[in-house]
């Protein structure tokens, strides 16, 4: 049994964990839920030895232990998949999997790559990932990298004798349905040896998988419920402290878009490496969702519109004006905003504070003759911190220290406040708690009312259906089917899936 007693943690300006008691029985799967910034990741990092608690004890089978470093924790059989990706991008997959534990493959100072590749293949097999272990990690898709992280942690199984505790911090947020099922199978299979702590903002997942669920609010465990008996609504209420609106996607606020005003037009655009032509129009006030399986080429479309890659053929017009120079600065200048999926790389500048991050793409509006208007910047930041209830000590806090969900909110505020007329949202609600998701849906509706065009790659099919006016099903880089999505006559997820696979 693994136990935490009376754990305390403070950072300047925040009391993150307030006397948390927590235990996991052998072979148990424990869910951990809570709002953004409630302290979930911090708690996990304490268990993993990556963060030191200010007070409290950690006990394994009743004996106190002290992990000064994740290596100590790993030796005791504890592994963790981080919320933000933590693989080293320029190393190969197998080097990442065995990073720091190359010893078994070394003979007379030299690494036996063949042996390591074989072992890596074994680990990858556990997560059913069929890739060459010598692939450079940065070449993998986002979801593949997540599975590699999992495989890396599962290597503990062979490395350590005895019981394991595996910590999964929002492992599912980037995975597809199929991969999630696979992950759950792996978890259930491993129960003989390992117990799990599982953090997710998708409560249905938590409830299907967990034996017990801890509800964390503002650093305090407010409830522990039995996974089999718990209901989503009651947990939500405990997490957020209020009832969640029935009209989750705000369909009552969905207005017709403006047929006569075309914001963006793609005319027979061919993205690099895809044989098909893509054409569509985005109107003022329209939410257009691109749905499809992972790797269907949706992201490529967004990246072409944002000027990150030049399409091979075809033309892109923004408000009637054809785009010639394909560069991000050009697109931003034309009022295009992009909220990317990889928050850590393209979303947030760690080391810069909240207001600096928010105004980075719109410094022109916050300066005169190149001199910044710091007062206005602060005001903007405070305004958005309030609007999206971003949990920060102040607008001067370093964004790198915010919780994952709160970083996402800063990115949203950044692009929303910049007055872009075309906003592309790639998984905008990834890692957000229920309350924050509601705020984002409100924000999307408000944008539509103001005549902003939105292209959405949603987190779930339900979200795509609920939010959009129009849905394009993308498969293998081609738009397979269009759906009209007016309130009252929305398609069902089943209708979409037929064209997706």
């Amino acid at each position, binding site marked *: 049994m693994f136990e935490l007693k009376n754990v305390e943690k403070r950072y300047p*300006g925040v009391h993150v964990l307030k006397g948390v008691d927590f235990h996991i029985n052998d072979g148990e799967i424990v869910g951990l839920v809570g709002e953004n910034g409630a302290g979930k990741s911090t708690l996990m990092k304490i268990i993993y030895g990556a963060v030191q608690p200010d007070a409290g004890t950690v006990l394994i089978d009743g004996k106190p232990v002290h992990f000064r470093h994740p290596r100590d924790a790993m030796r005791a059989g504890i592994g963790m998949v981080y919320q933000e990706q933590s693989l080293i991008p320029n190393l190969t997959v197998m080097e990442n999997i065995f990073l720091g534990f190359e010893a078994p493959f070394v003979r007379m100072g030299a690494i036996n790559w063949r042996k390591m590749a074989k072992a890596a293949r074994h680990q990858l097999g556990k997560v059913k990932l069929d890739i060459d272990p010598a692939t450079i990690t940065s070449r993998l898709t986002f979801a593949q990298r997540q599975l590699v992280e999992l495989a890396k942690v599962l290597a503990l199984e062979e490395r350590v004798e005895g019981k394991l505790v595996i910590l999964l911090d929002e492992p599912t947020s980037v995975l597809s349905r199929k991969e999630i099922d696979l992950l759950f199978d792996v978890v259930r299979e491993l129960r003989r040896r390992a117990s799990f702590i599982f953090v997710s903002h998708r409560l249905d997942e938590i409830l299907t998988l967990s034996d017990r669920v801890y509800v964390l609010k503002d650093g305090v465990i407010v409830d522990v419920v039995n996974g089999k008996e718990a209901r989503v609504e009651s947990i939500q209420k405990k997490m957020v402290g209020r009832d969640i609106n029935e009209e989750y996607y705000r369909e009552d606020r969905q207005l017709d878009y403006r047929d006569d005003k075309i914001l963006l037009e793609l005319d027979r655009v061919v993205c690099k490496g895809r044989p098909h032509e893509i054409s569509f129009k985005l109107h003022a006030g329209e939410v257009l969702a691109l749905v499809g399986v992972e790797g269907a080429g949706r992201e490529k479309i967004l990246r072409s519109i944002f000027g990150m890659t030049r399409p091979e053929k075809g033309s892109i017009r923004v408000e009637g004006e054809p785009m010639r120079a394909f560069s991000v600065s050009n697109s931003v200048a034309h009022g295009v905003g992009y909220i990317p999926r990889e928050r850590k790389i393209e979303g947030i*500048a760690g080391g810069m504070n909240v207001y600096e991050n928010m105004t980075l793409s719109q410094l022109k509006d916050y300066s005169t003759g190149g001199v910044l208007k710091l007062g206005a910047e602060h005001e903007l930041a405070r305004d958005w911190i309030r609007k999206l209830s971003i949990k920060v000590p102040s607008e001067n806090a370093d964004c790198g220290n915010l919780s994952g969900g709160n970083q996402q909110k800063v990115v949203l505020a950044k692009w929303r406040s910049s007055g872009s007329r075309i906003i592309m949202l790639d998984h905008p609600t990834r890692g957000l708690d229920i309350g924050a998701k509601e705020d984002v849906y409100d924000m999307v509706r408000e944008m539509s009312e103001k005549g902003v065009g939105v292209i959405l790659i949603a987190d779930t099919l339900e979200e795509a259906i609920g939010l959009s006016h129009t849905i394009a099903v993308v498969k293998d880089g081609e738009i397979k089917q269009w759906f009209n999505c007016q309130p009252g006559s929305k398609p069902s997820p089943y209708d979409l899936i037929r064209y997706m696979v």
Partner: protein
Amino acid sequence: MVPHISAETIRRWVPLFVLLGLVLFFTALNPHFFSVRNFARIAISATPALMVAVGVTFVILMGSIDLSMEGTIAVAAVMFALILNRLGGSVVGVGGLAIPGALVVGAALGAINGLIHVKLKIPSFMASLSLGFVGVGLSLLITGGDRILIDDPVFRSLLTVRFGGFPLMTYVALFCLVVAWFIQANTTIGRNFYAIGGGEELARGSGLNVGRLRIIAFVIAGVFYALGAILAVARLGIAETETGRNFMFVSITSVVVGGTALAGGSGGVWNTLIGVLIVNVIGNGMVVIGLPDYFQDGMLGLLVISAVYLSMDRRAFSFVK
């Protein structure tokens, strides 16, 4: 609640503590160290280096490096002297054009440096190192290896006229430092340098023209090198190829000792001020306590390493490059 002092805050102030510690140390060994006269001496040796280090700070904030300063200083100093002497030999009147002239030379060399780095996609390390050699060669070509003397009393007043014990050049340098701070904290380009240093992908994704900004940083650096060159000439009254000597090591160490991360994104010109003072206090202090020459250099090296050790949070780096 007890005020919470994080490791981060402590780390921010370490360079200042190191500086104060060094001052106390040298004062304890020789009380003459702690005198206005000696501080003025430190200030004089520190001012040109401060300008150069401030210049390279902008480049380092972006996560690049500039090693061209010795060449740029040599060319700027020599050009300054030539223009001055050709136009009447006094900075009052047309001869004063020598100052903007030197700054333009610095800016131009910076621009070439930046263009080579950005347009030809050559790492800044290589581009600037090579350009530094070209600069040294160029200044030799211009002077033929000769020294150019400057005896304009007005210009030399930078060194000879003192206020409160410190020569005029110290105040000029402080003024330039404030300008640099303004660029860093209050202008869009300053903010954007931090963004590029913090994450280039992100900066691009936010619509910044990263290539152009890089070139601007090298131009600003070039201008500050030229300022450093002018002050160095003012100090000695001589302009020659040798004027640029030693500035590369001193300025880069100062920036790093001051706590600006070589990886970019954190630090700034105030850190650089502290860094320059640390390096110069060490140099001066060793003389004051009477250590022989050969000992000084070795000690300087060791002290620099320990200062860097104290002022950086190595846990923040997975690898030290």
